[in-house]
């Protein structure tokens, strides 16, 4: 237990529950908004979630500009385009409505606008010098938790690397977490984002920067995923399972935003950048391989994870029991289990390992991988 080590816990104001979404206008007003930059994506608009948000802004007589030119794995040029719109339209507050892509892009837009610099300047930890405009996040997936985290992952189109921007400056001001918004996710997205939340929780729990505060959230997130992900996948319209998964994502977010992550995310950023694959799917695939490679560095912690997932803590081979559970979850979610299934060439593994090594998430991983060990992990997953 790391109870006596010095730790910090940062979180936005969080409103969780049905109807949180309709508070968008009130919070935008209270944060001094005049013209709101609404960052979202076409899928969210199609699902019908933009309309009630704009109604709420109208109710407060706020003006707004909708920027929906955001795609999965948001790129630096999307961010710069957004920042131009933000400035041209003289916006003063950011409202992100969507999954991790919309929220990450929106947070980076704020940093670019306030600092007048290219987004690449912020890559790394605590690299944003000037305070950003206020940010309100309304997540529409139960997984990314970008609405509470200090992370924004932006892809560099030239290098095809997903760069992590980590800064307290981009912890949103307010998270309006409304489980109803996740009812419109299809089965595949529900599975990928749910396993993303599980990956957040597991990596935060075994992180070298974990604390009692983050452990509490991480374990609760793992329990909730274990209980509600299979139910949600069975019945996509079950609001109780959706609420359970949204809560799981929120807990996992609070845990990983403060404890950071590990090897799975490092490699997942690398993989997602190279092949332009959805982040949730990359995590889902790589999770069990990361757990396997890390297990020996934190066996007790992994055993507690097994327990939280409803497994038997006194199992003679807890690693195998945990990996079996993770494999079962993944395959029932219908997500491929091998890197080769993604169309990745074997010769690309070394590049993946190299990029992963440089990701800041490696700093907090329990096992200190060298390049060969990382490549071996990837080869196992291939």
């Amino acid at each position: 237990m790391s109870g006596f080590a010095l730790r910090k816990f940062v979180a936005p104001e969080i409103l969780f529950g049905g109807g949180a979404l309709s508070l968008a206008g009130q919070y935008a007003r209270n944060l001094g908004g005049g013209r709101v930059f609404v960052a979202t994506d076409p899928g969210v608009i199609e699902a019908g979630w933009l309309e009630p948000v704009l109604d709420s802004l109208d109710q407060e007589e706020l003006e707004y500009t909708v920027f929906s030119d955001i795609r999965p794995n948001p790129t630096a040029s999307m961010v710069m385009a957004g920042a131009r719109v933000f400035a041209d339209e003289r916006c003063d507050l950011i409202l992100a409505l969507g999954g991790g892509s919309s929220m990450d892009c929106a947070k980076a837009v704020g940093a670019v606008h306030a600092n007048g610099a290219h987004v690449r300047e912020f890559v790394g930890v605590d690299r944003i010098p000037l305070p950003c405009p206020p940010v309100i996040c309304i997540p529409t997936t139960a997984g990314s938790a970008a609405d509470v985290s200090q992370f924004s992952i932006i892809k560099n189109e030239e290098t095809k690397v997903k760069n992590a921007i980590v800064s307290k400056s981009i912890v949103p001001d307010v998270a309006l977490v409304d489980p109803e918004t996740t009812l419109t996710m299809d089965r595949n997205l529900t599975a990928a984002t749910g396993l993303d939340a599980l990956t957040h929780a597991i990596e935060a729990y075994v992180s070298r920067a974990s604390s009692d505060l983050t452990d509490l959230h991480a374990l609760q997130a793992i329990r909730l995923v274990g209980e509600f992900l299979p139910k949600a996948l069975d019945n996509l319209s079950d609001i109780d399972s959706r609420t359970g998964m949204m809560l799981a994502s929120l807990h996992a977010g609070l845990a990983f935003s403060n404890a950071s992550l590990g090897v799975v995310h490092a490699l997942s950023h690398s993989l997602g950048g190279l092949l332009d694959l959805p982040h949730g799917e990359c995590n889902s695939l790589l999770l069990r391989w990361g757990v396997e490679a890390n297990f020996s560095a934190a066996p007790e912690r992994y055993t507690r994870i097994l327990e939280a997932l409803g497994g038997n803590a006194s199992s003679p081979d807890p690693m195998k029991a945990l990996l079996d559970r993770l494999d079962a979850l993944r395959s029932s979610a219908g997500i491929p289990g091998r890197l080769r299934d993604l169309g990745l060439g074997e010769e690309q593994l070394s590049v993946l390992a190299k990029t992963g090594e440089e990701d800041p998430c490696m700093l907090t991983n329990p096992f200190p991988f060298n390049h060969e060990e990382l490549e071996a992990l990837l080869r196992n997953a291939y």
Partner: protein
Amino acid sequence: MPIDGNDEQFLALMGLGAKSGKKSHYPELKRRLSELERMRDLLDQARDAIFLLALPEEIVEYQNEAALGLLGLVRTQEKRLLQECLKTSHGASLTLFSLFPFLSSEEQRKIVPLLTRNGTRRFEASFQAAVEGGRTSGILILRDQEERIAVQEQLAASLKAVEEARMKTVRLTAAMVEMKDSYTGKNQRQSARLAHEIGLRLELPKPEIDDLVTAALLHDVGMMGVPTEILCIPGPLRPVDRRLMQEHAAIGRDILAKEGFPESISLAVLHHHERMDGSGYPDGLKGEDIPLFARVVGMADVVEAMLSHRPYRPAHSREEVLRELEEHQETLYDRRTAEICISLLLEGFSVSEETGNKY
């Protein structure tokens, strides 16, 4: 515990009130920020160049658009030094210290030529320092005064030209008097020289000295109206001739007044034969009633005349003149003027030398 939706206080306690946001102070912050920005916009519209400086390093903490515009600089995040923003007319960097070496909370001003995008222009620099919270800062305001100064200089130049033209006229007139009567002419030039010295010792301002000299140069201009025969009579005059002769004071005043000379000059000409005890002419004025210029011109006239040769008598010696002045300095002459004349004579002032005489 069930939530009573109507219980506002309960909702507020849970953080669900209308103003429960941790950052509900943002609108107020924003208002203050926009106020600051409005101030900055106003400063940017000012035509004066305004610098806020951290002292003594002379780091520019703020400069308005006009201040940037002096050398066509662009606003940057990095702080500049003042010397990067100011250039002398030769293009050298200029520090605040070189303009105002002493820090003071009192406003200091000075005119300073600066190189700008539009060439060298003169600015009125106003500087004021203030110590607050242990930090010394200063405000430097530069107002472009090139046009105003240029206009002033033009005015001064034309004034000087007018003044020179007047002096030419005066000298021409004096020369004409000299044509008519060489003794009177020489006397005017010499007494003007003496009046100038007296004026300096009386510490009169320059414009007054100029008028005093003009009065001395023209004090006998009225002789033009006196018949030449009378002027040429050697020795004492008959009473009737004397009265005619004495008319020259009033005639001189009339000529000058008619030509628009200042009253101080025409009155000095009118009264230059008055004496302190009232024994003079034309009005028998006494003491302080006699204008100062008249007293000085009269003194200079008398001293010059005594020191000069006349057809009907030789020149008086310096000693004789000194004795005369000492004897009558209370009765006939203004005491201060007489004292000055005495010391001038003792220091070697002489009327005979014509060299270097500019009158």
